[in-house]
């Protein structure tokens, strides 16, 4: 159905132009068409068309039973997703932002993640939860955080971070086919990104990291909203003669250690770019795994570019300063490769 690196097999068919938002919408639409057990529920997914216009038009096509507007009751509708999944449905639950998902943390952590194991394998939860994450739109400290790394701490769930159109289009169906809860984090700055995608693009696998740029001098490991910044940084580094390899993790749980360790074994230098806060972050976990698996391969200490440890500020210059940016990634990579700025 798809290749190891997550590319659809039919990648040589006709290409169409679309946005990340349209790719997500196409994925939801396909799921609703393919499986009558699938339904979408969340705040303003119906009449309003989705807070970020992802589900625009779906209410007209599929009706209010399957495109279900919910009250502002994150805990109840996420928990209802868990229950409906146990009851044989295939819910896609949309939460407006990762910050709001904290109101449903009880259902995600205490129920969705535990029930299969706690019940001795009797009740699995085939639930997909989608939510927006990340900064970059001046939405301040209650709409902009990157807590996907936090969720990756929790066994029992899977955490996906589609950074490309292909993954925005392809991860949802695979997640719906998964017998266990899958959380999909869509970075808010990506919805308007436009690109080309095969007209018949379809499901992609969801457990492997992807090499988005090959290089030999340094591995830049990232995911989600910072992938495009990292690729830009790699182009700038190339002008300085530094050939960077860019690893897109794609999934934070399970974390594809083999792929990034192979990259490290090849380049011997690493910078991790993570929009989460540094302390206790997924970047820290990646560093730990590099220490465990590739310590003697390293030619320099592993470096990180993370968000500043502040609640996300509103003012544009402060928000930019608080989050990973291209110049910072370039500088960090240069330091690791050359030993100086």
């Amino acid at each position, binding site marked *: 159905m798809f290749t190891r690196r997550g590319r659809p097999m039919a990648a040589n068919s006709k290409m169409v132009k679309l946005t990340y938002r349209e790719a997500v919408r196409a994925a939801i639409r396909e799921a609703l068409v393919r499986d009558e057990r699938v339904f979408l529920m969340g705040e303003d997914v119906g009449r309003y068309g989705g807070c970020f216009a992802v589900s625009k038009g779906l209410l007209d096509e599929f009706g209010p039973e399957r495109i279900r507007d919910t009250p502002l009751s994150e805990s109840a509708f996420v928990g209802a997703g868990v229950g409906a999944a146990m009851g044989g449905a295939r819910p896609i639950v949309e939460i407006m932002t990762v910050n709001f998902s904290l109101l449903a943390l009880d259902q995600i952590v205490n129920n969705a993640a535990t029930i299969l194991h706690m019940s001795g394998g*009797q009740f699995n939860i085939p639930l997909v939860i989608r939510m927006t994450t990340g900064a970059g739109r001046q939405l301040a400290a209650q709409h902009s955080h990157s807590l996907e790394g936090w969720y990756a701490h929790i066994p029992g769930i899977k955490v996906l971070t589609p950074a490309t159109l292909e993954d925005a289009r392809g991860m949802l169906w695979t997640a719906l086919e998964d017998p266990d809860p899958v959380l999909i984090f869509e970075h808010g700055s990506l919805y308007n990104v436009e690109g080309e995608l095969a007209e018949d693009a379809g499901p992609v696998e969801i457990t492997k990291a992807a090499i988005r740029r090959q290089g030999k001098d340094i591995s830049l490991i990232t995911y989600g909203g910072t992938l495009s910044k990292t690729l830009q940084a790699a182009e700038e580094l190339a002008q300085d003669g530094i050939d960077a390899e860019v690893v897109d993790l794609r999934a934070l749980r399970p974390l594809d250690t083999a792929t990034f360790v192979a990259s490290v074994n090849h380049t011997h230098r690493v910078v991790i770019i993570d929009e989460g806060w540094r302390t206790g972050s997924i970047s820290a976990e990646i560093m730990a795994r590099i220490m465990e698996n590739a310590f003697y391969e390293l030619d320099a200490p592993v470096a990180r570019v993370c968000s500043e440890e502040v609640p996300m500020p509103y003012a544009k210059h402060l928000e930019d300063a608080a989050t990973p940016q291209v110049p910072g990634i370039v500088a960090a990579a240069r330091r690791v490769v050359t030993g100086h700025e």
Partner: protein
Amino acid sequence: MKPRTNNKRLPLQRDHALHLLKEMLRIRRLEEKCAELYTATKIRGFLHLYIGEEAVAVGAMEALQPEDAIVATYREHGHALARGVSAESIMAEMYGKVEGCSRGRGGSMHLFDAATRFYGGNAIVGGGLPLAVGLALADKLAGRARVTACFFGEGAVAEGEFHESMNLAALWNLPVLFCCENNLYAMGTALGRSESETDLCLKATSFEMPAWPVDGMDVLAVEAATQRAVLAVRSGGGPHFLEYRTYRFRAHSMFDPELYREKQEVEEWKKRDPIVKFTELLQRQELLHTDDLAQMEKEVADEIAKAVDFAEAGSWEPVEELTRYVYSERAPHGSE
């Protein structure tokens, strides 16, 4: 809707009466044995006994069908037993043995059983309500005339999840029966010390949900009220709320010194013991014959003894299986 009391007696048949009595006795004796085994350190962790409240689980389960779903709390031994989960697998679970209904992973607070659609003891107060809403939503979407019965204590009404779930179930007209077991204390906090409005049915009616109080010490009243509510829910009448007024005779858990209530109060409630009162009723109506009770006690004692033997003889899940079922073992649905 105006809250109503519902004490209508069904025509009482001897077989059915004896069945109800025996079901309550099974719970009582199982739990007395659990307390003993806890003291003997055979059972560990938290142990929350249901003694005094048996009429609720027994009467309510009588009103439900095998295709219906149950969501319960951490005080759920009685519900599981009355639902048809075997005493053996419950006891083995409390021992932490792999033969337990949750393979020893859940213990007393997390009994699960797919065969009887028993969706668990949930140990987060209020945490089971959204699950019940979702189970009912799946039934509604699939066009199945099934009911999801969700049990919770009156302490749960202080949780946001209670209000969110009641609203969602009523808004979407979902087939949920909200079974509130009001035993007057949320652990040690009396209802009046935690709620500005202590009329629980009033809370339900504020969501436009039919609600009425039931004498939770009277198994026939529980059965009749629940049957009436289940019928309404199953026939598309939307969610209903029942407040079973009951009382826990034992401490909250095995660690509770009961500083928050008077011994006198407990003694007063014990006069309304659902098993004693029902036995007396059956004797008055001459439905309970001379040897019935002794015979019943013997059968129950044998069942409990067998359950203990089963648990004792059970095995520990191999440590190599510790990480089994963190994720499913089977292939995803429809994978090619």
